[in-house]
């Protein structure tokens, strides 16, 4: 790809400005996330002074043990915050891949059927099979993957076009939604309540065991995403142009769809289909960047921040009530996005 003439001074200046903006946004988000993480370890009903939090974190190295504090910090707060960050990142990356790939800001997994597949499968496990706990997560994971495979398979005709994937995704979402509605009108109220609690999504039962599957998935998925993102920039120009530029369009698209489904499926299995994080992270990141880059890294940071911030609000905003995180992400993410829509005084292109 070296057919471009030497860039002029003006191009250099613009590139410099964009790079600066990208750096500022990334650093700003990273600092905000670090602060939020620290706050998450400090806040809670059991008061722990910041110094003791640090001591606990370092205790595996120093050997200084303080049983009560260590349990609260290392077995309750750290896993919960880590899970929030990882699931937030996963939802965000899933969302921004779909939105970019399908060139439609509305095409996040919670609209084109992937989340519906996971949810319908989980509701089926809860209401019809009477399962709970880990098996519901397994069911949700299987539902997400099978739905995605069905959408891709049905959309395949000598390759897939974004438009076909979106439309068939809508169809699948409708079927899965109908399955859920039907089960809801046929079940006992108690089962419906259980299913609803799972559907909203929560970190209230976070434990270290929930983190491993997701963490291992991310070890595979993140390098895959980084490798394929370059092709995505070419695909933005349309399939024909991208092919002419030497991009292996169909291969890369399949790889990216697999990655996006993987992110959504693992995150949903871990915490339930937490609403709106996948949808909102990409648009927020791109509005902050204002054209300076594709926003993947920034979207991941935004997703983690929305999830972690929402969970803190859910835990500590109302005394004596622990809300599920999914109740807050919708409001939190929505306010964030609406504020950006109002504040940005120029056309922010989101796709």
């Amino acid at each position, binding site marked *: 790809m070296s057919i471009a003439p030497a860039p002029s001074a003006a191009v250099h200046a613009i590139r410099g400005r964009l790079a600066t903006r990208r750096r500022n946004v990334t650093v700003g988000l990273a600092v905000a996330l670090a602060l939020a993480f620290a706050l998450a370890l400090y806040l809670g009903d059991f008061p722990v002074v910041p110094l003791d939090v640090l001591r606990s974190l370092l205790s595996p190295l120093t050997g200084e043990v303080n049983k009560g504090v260590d349990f609260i910090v290392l077995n309750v707060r750290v896993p919960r915050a880590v899970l929030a960050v990882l699931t937030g990142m996963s939802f965000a990356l899933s969302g921004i891949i779909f939105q970019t790939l399908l060139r439609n800001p509305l095409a996040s997994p919670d609209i084109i059927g992937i989340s519906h597949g996971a949810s319908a499968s989980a509701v089926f496990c809860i209401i019809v099979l009477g399962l709970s706990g880990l098996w519901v997560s397994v069911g949700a994971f299987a539902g997400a993957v099978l739905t995605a495979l069905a959408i891709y398979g049905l959309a395949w005709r000598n390759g897939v076009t974004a438009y076909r994937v979106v*439309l068939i995704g809508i169809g699948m979402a409708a079927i899965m*939604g109908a399955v859920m509605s039907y089960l809801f009108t046929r079940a006992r109220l108690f089962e419906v309540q259980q299913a609803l609690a799972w559907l909203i999504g929560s970190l209230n039962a976070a434990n270290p065991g929930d983190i491993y599957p997701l963490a291992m998935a991310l070890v595979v998925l993140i390098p895959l995403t980084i490798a394929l993102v370059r092709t995505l920039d070419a695909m933005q120009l349309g399939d024909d142009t991208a092919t002419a530029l030497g991009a292996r369009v169909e291969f890369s698209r399949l790889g990216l769809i697999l990655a996006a489904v993987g992110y959504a499926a693992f995150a949903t299995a871990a915490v339930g289909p937490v609403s709106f994080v996948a949808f909102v992270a990409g648009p927020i990141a791109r509005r902050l960047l204002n054209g300076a880059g594709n926003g993947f890294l920034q979207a991941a940071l935004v997703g983690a921040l929305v999830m972690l911030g929402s969970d803190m609000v859910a835990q500590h905003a109302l005394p004596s009530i622990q809300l599920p995180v999914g109740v807050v992400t919708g409001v939190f993410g929505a306010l964030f996005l609406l504020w950006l829509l109002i504040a940005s005084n120029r056309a922010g292109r989101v796709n």
Partner: protein
Amino acid sequence: MTVSAPTFDARRGVPLLLGLLGLVAIVLCVAFLSITVGARPVTLDTVWAALTAYNPDSTDHRIIWELRLPRTVIGLLVGAALGLAGAVLQGATRNPLADPSILGIHAGAALFVVLGVAILGISQLSIYVWLAFAGAGAAMLIVYAVASLGREGATPIKLALAGAAMTAALQSVISAILLTSPRTLDEVRFWQVGSLAGRNMDIVIQVAPFLAVGIVLALASARLLDGLSMGEDVARALGQRIGLSRAIAGLAAVVLAGASTAAAGPIAFVGLTVPHVARAITGPNYRWILPYSMLLAPILLLGADVLGRVLAPPGEVQVGIVTAFLGAPFFIALVRRRKLASL
């Protein structure tokens, strides 16, 4: 507003016009079925007698007049409204995923109904209608206001994002209420599926004027949507006032979506997919897409309703569920088979 009308192309126009007449015939057939088919078998003679010489002492006559006729009228009106609302929104935002549920209209209606049940303990359908209507209108006003702020005005992309944000926020509030109030969950889980059953003529009379205004507005906006579909710059160059066009289309969609949600609950899928089917038949011209959507949608909705009555006796399957189960596979097959016109 002087986008010159293209001349009537007989080669395309005549078959499309015949198709439209064919659809009118199918709508009438489905309406006929909706009046004659149900849990209680009623002979055709009795149906005819009930419609021509009504006898309030006869149970069969009362079933026809008080149950099946309102249900049929609601099905026709709500179907037409949903099909048009979807087509208009997709045209105005130029986004194939646009429909009432994306723009926050359903969520607004649902929130007001949920609040009414949870706080005021309301359980009459006739009050749900007004709650839903107020909620739909309030949500859309806020979405439109937010999208209009900033320099560009209500661009399609901002409308869609603001609508999605609104939907997410309201859904969160709804979830929180349903979690804490089992009684509300028990009441609302049946309403939110969408149904044509149990609506009497009073509800029809209440929402009909709104639906009529919406339908007229929507059909009148065909030319504006054709202008918008050429892209903003072309439309502007042709002298079209973009903001005004979008406002008219948006108003039509709100009135239609609000009134139909009020009458039958938040029925998904119909408004989203029927316009795509219409577009596959007619091509990209909104002068055809709108009337086709307006006729195809009631066929789907009322057909699904009739099927729902006989699928699982003695109970009924709500129309929202049948619509998705029946319509979605058909829709997916259509998307696979045809090269669909992009927006």
